[in-house]
């Protein structure tokens, strides 16, 4: 695109009081030969009108807005992304509001603040010079949704999707729809007044699915292979011998859970006596219409429910499955209804009936034949007469007790289907493998979030990065984000229901709807060549200059979203619709062949080179700050908002993600004579906050490697520092920056200055 750049400088909000805006305009005109305009309040109607009409007259399509933070007045300064490129130079928050003017005799402005403003402007202009409007990746995309799993979650997802006007392919491995819910006798209540258990929802659901013309159902079918990418998935479905392939836009994973294997619960008597059963078996007994002792078919006169059987237990399932308490209360009623003289014992660690479910607990309690106490089950002993004795410690009765029961029911927890299968741990890159051997502890410190994946044979993705969704914990392919429960690590594939996290039917139905919407959203955005969350609407995507590729495989391995496949030679094969535009691949590439239309290695390199570095004797050190766009950069703004001050030797460049850090930038910076580099990225580790999963961690890793090299080049590695910054950490920033400056002063000026 033929680019005509225009610079628009705002003097408002105290900017013109602290920096010489006219001088800034001169820099644009003299150094970059571009028109520049100063306005007292650029965001005002008049100001923006002037900008727009200059654009119209002068055919300006590259805008440099030097005013407030890009986070302010965003709507005012937004222009057609397909026809224009623009950048916001943050003069307000990050220059005039965050630096103490120190005005010398006879001068109107502080020269350091002025220099800061000038450099920020230069970088802005250079950025726009290196930007092109993105050209969206378009193709003949499918908008069909594939739902894997025909339980309540799967069926609901399918229906909700169809009702929104989209075609659905529903795949269930059993011969009939219904999943686990089909095995239920009754469901515990989910609406006020939360009393009588209701008949299961799955019957009507199956009926509705059958009737829905937009849903194409495959039962007794499995997914053999899923090839491709969002909008272009090819799902090979095997059904009684033959395989059909369906073109799919996005996928909802709803394969549900398996009850925890009771054979591992010998200590609770399972297998010791036939009269020790699980809540699952109990449900089936009740469905058959008579709750009896498996050993002799005698009607049950007493039953003991042991809650958290294998749940909240470090040796079994450390987590809570959320539904067992409610289920046991419900089943207690089964026993009592069948035999009004029956005694039912319930032994719990905590009764967990959250929200309005408390009303159900309250109601079940009223039954005089149900005896409850907190307690730790010490022993379960089969007796000669077929009954089972249960010893319970730490009870509320103030003593250790023993009860005899005809039937002992173990409330077993949920294991996500995706947890069943052998696991494979993905290394981040091949060096790691070598590193693993020589530097164990370094590995440990780095691989805080290994991309654990379990080959559960559910999706069988034809992805270089493994066949299933990466596991978050305990085999749940859940999102790591509280604010974004559908933030998946495989674009266009959304987990829902009890496979995502333990949840009951009511919540699964909600979750099914949520995942369905995300799938629909994905196909809609993809069809317009736009990215999905978190960089929604971003139309750029990586462009690889393959001639220079060395098949080092870093991009394929480091992409958190599995965007690249590989050919047999090891060449990366990009799938743009899988891309989330984090640009981690761009940072990973030693050959720097990966770039985006509006974001590239040379662009940041050029911005660094645009910084003016004073001579050593001027004693004006320079520090380059590369800051994560979502957390560190707003935090720097907050420093300004709070009018907290820090030294004015820093030059700030926002990055899409710190993971896009390319080591060449370090070389660019140091060879330019800049004295230090401060990287501000998100918290990483177990509770990582990087929305690109591994960005900040990878930056950390890359830096650790370059620091070794620096030492070899007799360049102090102290010149490089990486800090983990939360968005709310603004109060820490000035300290970090000033303290880093002291370190730099100790180390002394960069020897490359002036070269």
């Amino acid at each position, binding site marked *: 695109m033929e680019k005509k750049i225009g610079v628009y400088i705002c003097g408002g909000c105290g900017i013109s009081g602290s920096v010489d805006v006219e001088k800034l305009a001169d820099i644009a005109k003299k150094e970059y030969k571009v028109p520049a305009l100063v306005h007292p309040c650029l965001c*005002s109607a008049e100001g923006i009108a002037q900008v727009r009409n200059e654009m119209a007259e002068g055919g300006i399509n590259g805008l440099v807005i030097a005013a407030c933070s890009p986070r302010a007045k965003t709507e005012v300064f937004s222009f057609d992304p397909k026809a224009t490129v623009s950048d916001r130079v943050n003069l307000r928050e990050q220059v005039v509001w965050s630096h103490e003017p120190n005005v010398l005799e006879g001068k109107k402005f502080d020269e350091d603040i002025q220099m800061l403003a000038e450099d920020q402007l230069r970088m802005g202009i250079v950025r726009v010079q290196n930007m092109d409007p993105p050209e969206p990746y378009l193709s003949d995309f499918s908008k069909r949704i594939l739902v894997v799993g025909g339980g309540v979650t799967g069926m609901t997802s399918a229906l909700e999707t169809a009702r929104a006007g989209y075609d659905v392919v529903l795949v269930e491995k059993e011969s009939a729809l219904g999943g686990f819910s089909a095995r239920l006798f009754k469901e515990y209540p989910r609406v006020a007044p939360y009393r009588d258990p209701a008949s299961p929802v799955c019957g009507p659901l199956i009926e509705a699915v059958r009737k829905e013309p937009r849903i194409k159902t495959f039962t007794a079918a499995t997914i053999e292979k899923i090839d491709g990418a969002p909008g272009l998935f090819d799902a090979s479905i095997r059904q009684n011998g033959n395989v059909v392939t369906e073109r799919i836009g996005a996928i909802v994973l709803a394969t549900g859970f398996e009850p925890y294997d009771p054979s591992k619960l010998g200590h609770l008597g399972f297998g010791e006596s036939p009269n020790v059963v699980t809540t699952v078996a109990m449900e089936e007994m009740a469905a058959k219409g008579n709750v009896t002792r498996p050993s002799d078919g005698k009607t049950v006169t007493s039953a003991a429910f042991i809650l958290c059987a294998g749940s909240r237990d470090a040796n079994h399932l450390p987590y809570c499955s959320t539904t067992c308490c409610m289920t046991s209360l419900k089943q207690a009623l089964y026993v009592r209804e069948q035999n009004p003289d029956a005694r039912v014992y319930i032994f719990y660690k*905590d009764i967990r009936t959250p929200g309005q*479910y408390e009303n159900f607990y309250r109601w079940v309690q009223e039954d005089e034949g149900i005896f409850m106490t907190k307690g730790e089950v010490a022993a379960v002993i089969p007796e000669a007469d077929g009954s089972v004795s249960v010893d319970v410690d730490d009870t509320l009765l103030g003593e250790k007790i023993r009860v005899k029961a005809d039937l002992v029911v173990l409330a077993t927890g949920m294991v996500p289907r995706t947890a069943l299968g052998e696991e494979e741990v993905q290394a981040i890159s091949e060096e790691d493998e070598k590193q693993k051997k020589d530097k164990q502890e370094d590995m440990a410190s780095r691989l805080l979030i290994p991309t654990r994946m379990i080959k559960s044979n559910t999706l069988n993705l034809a992805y270089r990065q493994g066949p299933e969704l990466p596991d978050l914990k305990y085999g749940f392919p859940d999102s790591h984000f509280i604010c974004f*429960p559908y933030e998946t690590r495989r674009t266009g594939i959304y987990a829902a229901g009890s496979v995502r*996290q333990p949840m009951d039917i009511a919540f699964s139905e909600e979750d099914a*709807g949520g995942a369905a919407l995300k799938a629909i959203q994905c196909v809609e955005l993809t069809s317009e060549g736009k990215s999905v969350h*978190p960089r929604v609407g971003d139309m750029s995507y990586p462009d690889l200059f393959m001639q220079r590729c060395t098949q080092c495989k870093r991009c394929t391995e480091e992409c958190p979203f599995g965007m690249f496949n590989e050919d047999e030679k090891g060449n990366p094969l990009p799938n743009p619709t899988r891309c989330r535009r984090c640009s981690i691949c761009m940072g990973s590439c030693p050959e720097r062949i990966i770039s985006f239309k509006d974001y590239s290695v040379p662009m940041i390199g050029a911005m660094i080179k645009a910084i003016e570095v004073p001579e050593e004797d001027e004693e004006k050190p320079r520090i380059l700050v590369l800051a994560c766009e979502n957390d560190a950069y707003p935090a720097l703004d907050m420093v300004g*908002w709070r009018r907290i001050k820090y030294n004015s030797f820093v030059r700030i460049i926002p990055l899409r993600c710190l993971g896009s850090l390319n080591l060449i930038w370090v070389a660019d910076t140091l060879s330019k004579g800049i004295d230090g580099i401060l990287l501000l990225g998100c918290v990483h580790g177990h509770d990582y906050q990087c929305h690109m999963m591994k960005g900040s961690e990878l930056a950390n890793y890359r830096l650790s490697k370059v620091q070794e090299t620096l030492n070899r080049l007799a360049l102090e590695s102290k010149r490089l520092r990486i800090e983990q910054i939360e968005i709310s950490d603004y109060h820490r920033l000035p300290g970090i920056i000033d303290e880093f400056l002291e370190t730099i002063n100790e180390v002394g000026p960069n020897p490359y200055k002036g070269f």
Partner: protein
Amino acid sequence: MTDVQNKRGAILVIGGGVAGITAAVEAAETGFPVYLVEKEAYLGGRAVRMNQYFPKLCPPTCGMEINFKRIKNNPLITYYTMAEVTEIRGEAGNYTVKVTMKPRYVNERCTACGKCGEVCQTEIPNSFNYGMDRVKAAYLPHEMSFPMRYVLAPDIVQTEDGKRCQAACAYDAIDLAMVPQTIELKVASVVVATGWEPYDALRIDNLGFGKAANVVNNVMVERLAAVNGPTGGRIIRPSDGKEIKSIAFCQCAGQRDENHLPFCSRVCCLASLKQAHYVRQQYPDADVYLFYIDLRAMGQNEDFLTKIQADEKVRLIKGKIAKVVEDPSTKDIIVEAEATASGKVARVQVDMLVLATGMVPSTAREKIPFTTPHYDEDGFTKDAPGIYGAGCVKRPLDVASSVQDATAAALKAIQSAVGR
């Protein structure tokens, strides 16, 4: 699918908290026009007033930043702050809605430069911090407020201060003549996401709230722990600013109680465990006593419970606090409960007592003006064709579940809006 590409009805989202914002952006990013109506001067609701989310202990503003960016960049979303829905007429697919906006006395020209705040002399209680400190009457609700625009308290509009602020504004953004304004919207469906309010602890006469200075509730603790809170993030005693050597948490302060809230609020156990963690972070020697009936850490949150439980300075005691006495000389709090595990009374003297008060659906007090009501006996909303609850107005939920719920609600709303 053609009908999806065709005309699309608009969606009204009532409430700009985490659930409302989610419903709005998710629907808009699927291609549907959305009106988002928030009664406060800023979006973000209760969530932005939290210090950290459990179990990750991450700041809510991180996700909010992304969501605000999504709103700014999405022309399909129109949001109104200081606005309330005053009327809803019609049926699914075709509602007519009246929205009334209170005067903000600051127009869109505001750059949030802060000049008005500097000259303003009047101070008002800071509702963002539950009145624990005061702010200028010309103020930004908090530094990450969205929209990034000042507010003038009605208190000063007719005063010299008002004029002073107006004079100080270089961008004539202050409009003292602003009056309430009502607009009418046509929408196909409605998402109700008006969220929750903390239960009024003054109604619990045996737990000392409002009587003893050092008895606070859990939402106040979030503000005390927040860097942008009244104490700059230091958890200290309200009575004398003394630091905390011992603290007690009273779970179910009104919840699971027929005299107050019969239901359980789901999040309070984890919230208190989280706040126990705040205290232990700030005071390595502090003793924490958490009294509960049942500890409810559902799902993988169990890991968080396990983690906190490993700290021997945090004592989790089964037994409800039912007696609270203030030591008049020290202003310390003496709490009492039966530790049912040992069958002995636990009586401890602490610097501060935190009441884990529960969630009341905002619709328990203020009903949405539907043509027909859709509430259960506790005031939680029930879904009806064209009208869908999302988040804590439907059932007590944590943030992640609210977002999940809101996303589902967005789809429901879309279904009623398809092809309208």
